[in-house]
């Protein structure tokens, strides 16, 4: 596992800053700074202040698993409400939210309805991509598309632009192959190549999808088979930030021009790679649960090269 590169030139090592910020909050708050998303945790305090003054912020929530009621968290609906409450109380209002999938646990209509009511209660626009738990209705994903498929292609992928940043929502949880990992598929990759044609290399790119687009731990299925083809299409861009969920814990790495980051769940934690018999829900002492759940905030600073990400817990 590669962690974020230290950058002593910032006066504070990025890894140190990230570790500090992990203790600080509820989500990942992403900031776009100079056109590049940086989690606020990666910036020094003065840089973060500047980013907030000149850029904009968006918020990532993930893996709310509405309907989950097992030992690891019998009240997943309550912890989502807590997360939304913390988002509403943020001094710096995000411009919008993204949800990186597993909105529901079992794709039931009531679960989608509850999630929409709670998340919608925050009053922000929300851009969704599905997780595998959102596509297990009898219609094999029709329930998700009926709610969130408007204006999307294929299984629900799309792009949009905000404040000079090109956002791309990808779907890597359909047509999964025996023995494989997450899957984007030829149709989506062709669409991505076409979508990027009109985007200049200096435009910051934010890609979001449910399963990590890098090989976090293939033994547990934590990766995407054809991610390399998507990343090849993104090579010419100066700043690419990839935001994922699925693994219910924070992982981050930087590879060339690409920063990868996964967000916490608002429902239940999962074990670190290889530390348990399976990646299933991890039951922790009741007092510890909220320190392992959270959201992420991202700040985009105009003219900078990194986006700032702040991961905040519910504790």
């Amino acid at each position: 596992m590669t962690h974020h590169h230290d950058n002593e030139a910032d006066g504070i090592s990025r890894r140190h800053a990230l570790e500090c910020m992990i203790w600080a909050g509820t989500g990942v708050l992403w900031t776009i700074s100079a056109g590049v998303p940086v989690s606020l945790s990666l910036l020094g305090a003065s840089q973060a202040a500047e980013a907030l003054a000149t850029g904009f912020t968006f918020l990532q929530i993930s893996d709310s698993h509405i309907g989950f009621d097992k030992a690891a968290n019998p009240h997943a609906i309550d912890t989502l409400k807590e997360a939304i409450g913390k988002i509403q109380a943020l001094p710096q209002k995000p411009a919008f939210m993204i949800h990186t999938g597993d909105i529901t646990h079992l794709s039931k209509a009531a679960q989608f309805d509850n999630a929409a009511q709670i998340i919608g209660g925050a009053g922000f626009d929300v851009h969704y991509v599905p997780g595998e738990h959102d596509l297990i209705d009898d219609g094999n994903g029709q329930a998700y598309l009926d709610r969130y498929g408007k204006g999307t292609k294929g299984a629900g992928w799309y792009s949009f632009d905000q404040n000079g940043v090109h956002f791309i929502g990808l779907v890597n949880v359909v047509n999964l192959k025996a023995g494989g990992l997450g899957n984007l598929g030829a149709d989506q990759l062709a669409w991505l190549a076409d979508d990027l044609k009109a985007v200049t290399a200096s435009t910051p790119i934010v890609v979001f999808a449910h399963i990590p687009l890098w090989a976090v731990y293939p033994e547990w299925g934590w990766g995407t088979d054809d991610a390399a083809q998507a990343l090849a299409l993104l090579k010419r861009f100066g700043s690419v930030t990839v935001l994922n969920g699925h693994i219910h814990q924070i992982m981050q790495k930087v590879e060339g021009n690409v920063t990868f980051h996964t967000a916490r769940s608002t429902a239940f934690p999962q074990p670190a790679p290889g530390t348990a018999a399976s990646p299933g829900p991890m039951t922790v002492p009741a007092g510890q649960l909220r320190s392992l759940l959270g959201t992420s905030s991202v700040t985009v600073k105009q003219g900078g090269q990194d986006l700032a990400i702040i991961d905040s817990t519910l504790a």
Partner: protein
Amino acid sequence: MIRFPSRVLVVSPVTFGLAAILIMVAMPLNAADQPMVKIENFAFTPAVLTVKQGTTVTFENDDDIPHLVVANDASFRSKALDTGDTYAFTFTKVGDYAYFCGLHPHMQGRITVAP
């Protein structure tokens, strides 16, 4: 088949009824006739199973996360199985059936159906 002494069949209806009950009790205990694949810790157990043609195999999900049983050749596919849910499929054709979890495709198993 479970066989009873032929004399049971010619005695009173009461005795015959008891024999029928004995058969019903005996069936579920016969693993060869009612094989079960457990889904636990993101794995199929047993991962490899050989059954006779015509056997019904039951898959049971014991995880806190839903799973979905799909044949590689699409010859069978369960709905999403929540905790405690089961899916039964009767294998009427001889052959090798590789299968996987449609949600977590690194989970794989194989059922061989012998004549």
